[in-house]
Each structure stands twice: as C-alpha cells, then as structure tokens.
C-alpha cells in the first residue's frame, strides 16, 4: 500500500514549522542507512550524507529502542518505494491533491487550542478532526471539504488518514527554531510515525 507522509506549515514561523521539521526528520532517518550498493550515483550519496547529518541534528536523540529497531528492520528498498514524503504550506485543495493516488496518509501539523500545554500531541483519525493550523486554506476550503470534492470527482484518496497535531507555543514570531516543548514533542511524533510506517510495511 502506498503511503504519503505530509508535513504542513510555515518553515520560518517558529512552532508553525513543526510539521515540516518532523517530516524532514522522518525522511532523513528513512534514507539514512541505504546500503552502499544502492548508492550508485553522486546524488544518492549526497542525499544519504545530508540525511545522516540531518538525522544527527534533529532526531539523533530519539533514535532509540523498539520503534527505531522495527523501523530499520522494515526499511527495505520496496518499502521505500511505497512511501513518499511531502513538505507543504497550504491546506485545502492543495493538501487533497498531495494525497491523490495514495492509500494511506499521515499528516503532521501545528495546532493552537489554547487549552493544552505547549507540546501536547493530538492524534486524530479523519474524519474525526478539528481545524489544525494549516489543513484549512483561507483561499479555498478546509480538508474535509477538499476530500469530499476529490472523492466526488473520482480521485483516488487514502482510506486511512492520520493527523498528528502538536500544540504550538509560538506561532507569532518569525524564526527557524521550535520552542523547547514543541521540539521535545516533535521527537515523540517522529518516533511514533516511524513505527507506524514500519507497521504499515
């Protein structure tokens, strides 16, 4: 089954970038140990090198125990071909278009409920989901409407959509870094999604 992992948010708006950073970390780990015989061309070597570096910086601390082990065990060439990683910044129709042709989707976004501590992780299974920060677009529609439209038009869309939303602390100040609470939360999200991907395969 083909799976798409989508990180959504603004990469330079502090905690709003949690989805983008999470998908980068998962992708980096996913490609980090491609066996050497697969690295036939320079671009692949470069990608591996970047991936390893990125993994060290962003998710090194959580490369751990069971989830990581099962992730590595399942990370065959075939499973890699079945998973696509996407970074995007707008919801609505755009988000639906990114899911077209996949059977499963995992979405990571920031959320501001204002009721929960920063770094709280929510896991929603579509259609049981609230508005997270970026799954809606002010210029067209929200995600449920976009999915309904896609289905109506006969577009193949995932039968299973899981949304991870991290309660953000700062979505007001421009900056490339996450706040401490959200950074910690991101690591657990990354861990869980790695395990999820391993189980899918």
């Amino acid at each position, binding site marked *: 089954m083909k799976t798409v992992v989508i990180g959504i948010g603004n*990469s330079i708006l502090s905690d709003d970038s949690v989805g983008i950073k999470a998908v980068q970390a998962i992708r980096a780990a996913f490609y980090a140990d491609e066996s050497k015989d697969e690295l036939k061309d320079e671009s692949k070597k470069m990608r591996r090198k970047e991936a390893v570096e990125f993994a060290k910086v962003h998710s090194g601390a959580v490369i751990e125990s069971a989830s990581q082990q099962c992730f590595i065990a399942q990370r065959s060439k075939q499973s890699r071909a079945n998973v696509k990683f996407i970074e995007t*910044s707008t919801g609505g129709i755009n988000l639906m278009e990114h899911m077209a042709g996949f059977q499963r989707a995992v979405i990571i976004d920031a959320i501001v409920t204002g009721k929960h501590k920063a770094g709280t992780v929510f896991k929603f299974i579509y259609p049981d989901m609230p508005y997270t920060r970026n799954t809606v677009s*002010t210029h067209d529609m929200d995600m449920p409407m976009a999915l309904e439209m896609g289905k109506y038009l006969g577009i193949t869309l995932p039968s299973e959509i899981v949304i991870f939303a991290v309660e953000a602390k700062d979505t007001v100040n*421009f900056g490339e870094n996450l706040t401490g609470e959200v950074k910690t939360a991101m690591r657990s999200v990354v861990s869980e999604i790695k395990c999820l991907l391993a189980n899918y395969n």
Partner: protein
Amino acid sequence: MKKISIDPVTRLEGHGRIDIFLDDEGNVENTYFIVPELRGFEQFCVGRLAEDMPVLTNRICGVCPEAHHMASVKALDMLFGVEPPAAAKKIRELLYMAFFVTDHTTHFYALGGPDFIVGPDAPPSERNILGVIRKVGIDIGKEVIGTRARNHHVIEMLGGRGVHLTGGLPGGWSKSLSKEEIEEIKDTAKKNIDFALFSLKTFDDIVLNNPVYKELIMSDIYVHKTYYMGTVDENNRVNFYNGKIRIVDPEGNEYVKYDSADYAEHIAERVEPWTYLKYPYIKKIGWKGFVDGADSGVYCATPLSRLNVSDKMATLLAQENFERMYDTLSGKGANGRYKPVHHRLATHWARLIELLYAAEHMLELANDGEIGSDNVRTIPNGVHCLPKADEAVGIGSVEAPRGTLTHHYVSDKNGVIKKVNMIVGTTNNYAPMTMSIKRAAEKLIIKGKVVEEGLLNKIEMAFRLYDPCLSCSTHSLPGQMPLIINIKNKDGETFKTITRNSWD
C-alpha cells in the same frame, strides 16, 4: 454603543475579526476589520544575504509564494544593478502567467463562484465548490483540478520546486527551457485559454443572464468610488510582471504614473490604534478616513482596479471580454477611456478576464523564439552602491493576484540586508475592504434590527471579492474564516450570537 463582533471560531492565533459598532439608534456607526500581527519578519531578514530574499520572502505565504519570489528577484536586479537577459525575463513572466491561471481559477470556483453559481442565499452547506460542481457538472470540477495540476507542473518545471520556487536569481533565472518543455507549455497554455473561455461563458450563462444576480452586482451595497492602482505597460495595457504603476481617479482620469522604485513618494501608510494593519493611501491627497471620493487618498488594487487603470488588454480575446464588461457596466467617459467600474462584485468578472489574459499571454511567451535561449543570466558583480554610498537599495514590484506587491530592501556594500519593507497586495485594499464591510453592514442592520439570515454571507461577500490574503498582510497563516457574530448592547452584554462552522 452596541458592538457586534464577527469572530472566526477557529481558536487560532493570527485570525481576523470584524467588529461592528452601533450608535444609540441601533444603526451601524463603524466597522473595524482587525487582524493580529505576526512579528519580526524584518528582524528575521536583517543580517542575511540579499540573494536569500527570494527564497525567504516566498515563505511568508503558502498561497502566493510566486508573487513574493518575483517581486523579490526584481528588487535584487536593482540592488545588484544588473539587467537580466531577455529570455530570463520571459521565463519569469511565463511562470508568473501559470501562477495567475491557478490562483484565479481556484478563487473563482472555490470562493467567488459559489455565491453566484449556487446563490448568495443558498444554505452554506450547499454554497461551496461541491455545489458549483453539482450545478455546472462534474467535468468542470475535473477541469479545475486538471488546470491546477497542469500549471503547477509548469511552475515546478520552471521554478525548481512546486511550492517555494528557487529559480529566481539577481540578473536572471537559474535554468533555461528545453524544446520539449516549451512544447508542453504551449499545450498547457492552449488548454488554459479554452478553460478561461469556458469560465467566462459560465459566468455569462449563470450570472449575467440571471436578472437577480445581475442586480446584485449592480446593487449599491457593493459600490465604492475610489482611486484605483495597477501596473500597465508602455501602451497602458494590463501587465502583471513589468511596467509602471498607474493610478486613476474615480472618474477614470490618470492621476499619476510612476516607477515602482518611487513608491514612497506616492504612497504613505496610515497607522490606526485599533489594529496592527497599516492602511496605505495616496500621499499627496492625504488620509481623510474610510471614505470614498476624489478628495480621499483611499485607493484599491485588485483585478478590477487593474482593468480600471488600463486603457485595454494586451491580448485579443481578453480585450473582447474587457470591452464587453465595460460596455455592460460603465461605458466610455468624456476623456474617451472607459469609465471605471465601481461595482466591487464585478471584481469576479475582472478576475476571469485576467485569467484569459494570463492564458493567452502564456501562449504568446511560449511561442516567442527568444524564450528557449540558453542565455538566462547576467552574473552581477557585487551590489550596486551609489557613488560615495556604502549601501545599496533594491525595489521591485509585480501585480500579485490580490494587488500590487512591492518589496524594498537596503543592504550594506557586501549585500547584507539592513532594512526590509513590503507593501503586499491585500494591504493596499484594507481601507476599501473596511469600507465595503461597513456598507454591507449598514444595509443589513437597521435600528438595531439585524437581518440575521444572510448577514454573515453578505458581509463575507464584501471582503471575499478582495480575496484577502491575511497570511501575506500580517505575515501569518491563519485558519479558515468561519464566523461568529456577537451582538452586544450598550453595556457590552451579548444578547445574540450567530455562529457558523464551529469546530466544536
């Protein structure tokens, strides 16, 4: 004084809010459109290398990164004192046409269309793109998605990335076009033309041929007689990528035409204590408040404004449609120009005419023999400091779908950014938008009696026609705009609440 607040209930930060204040009689005294600010973009940019600006500024907004990328790279051309080769300019413009096609298409079918095609009084559950598709046919839904896909592909092919493009460099573009790519683009452009013509015909059949909708467009709820701004080429024709900024007065006479580099001489920004938004106005006329007319510095910069400032369109089919719109809605004035159309709902019609122009011009550019040239870059030799100055200035502007977009940078002699200022498309329209909201509210709230049914949508229609990009103007990415109205009495107690689209 009574106060009515229309508040998105997304519970997200960075959201907009509309406050309506009633006087003692219960009539609308004033309305305020309030958008909280996001902070620190200038600070974020200061100290960075100027050449990074096109890839930083295009992250402000997920909806119009292409517009920021283009304005930014044009500002860099000036900052580095370098003229891009002809092919590079044409590639930029070609990509920009593909962007306009996707943006205008999405707006019309997802946002503007439902009010007309399904009907402004239809239940909200039907007044959406699905309602449009059910009415117009499933094939048109597929065509909307297909148009987006085709043009996104062109943007990705030319820009290097699908969302946040990287192709723009000071002095040109990072990649030339292959013959195969040009052929594909020609095919896409032809399909875009067909789609634009279909969309205009749909507008004709469903909107203009329906007396009720036509009356809605012509009704004075949505009329404002202000100045208009837009970019025109040397023949005073609409141009999205290059030209001079032209402003016409409410009668349609040219008030001024200037290079975007001189924007600060002509445009000033009004700060109001109740919002972080700044309200640009025509400097020499001055700020007279949120009022219409030739004595008020308020101007508007939208698809309709661009057509209002232009003498004609630069492509054949768009020109035919341009003439038809003005013959229908305004006619020619004493100066021989078409008079400006002040019916703001006609912005939707203007948007479709622009869609057709973008499609036609895309084909013209793809057919231009020069666009396939390998010469796409003039390599700059450091930033261009004025004699005896130790800093360089770069100002660039384009027409974003939502209005004139200006980027202004100052760097040191090494090209390190010291100062950034931007006037984004939507910002130009904050004063007119506030006025349009007030006008709609005045018609619907009389002597404390609120026309509850349709109030939300009629007020929303007032600002939806501008397609406000709060992401850009506040540099934030808010959620959708579901609305809540709280109607408060003199003592500030809420006596009525109307909500829609709550996520509870």
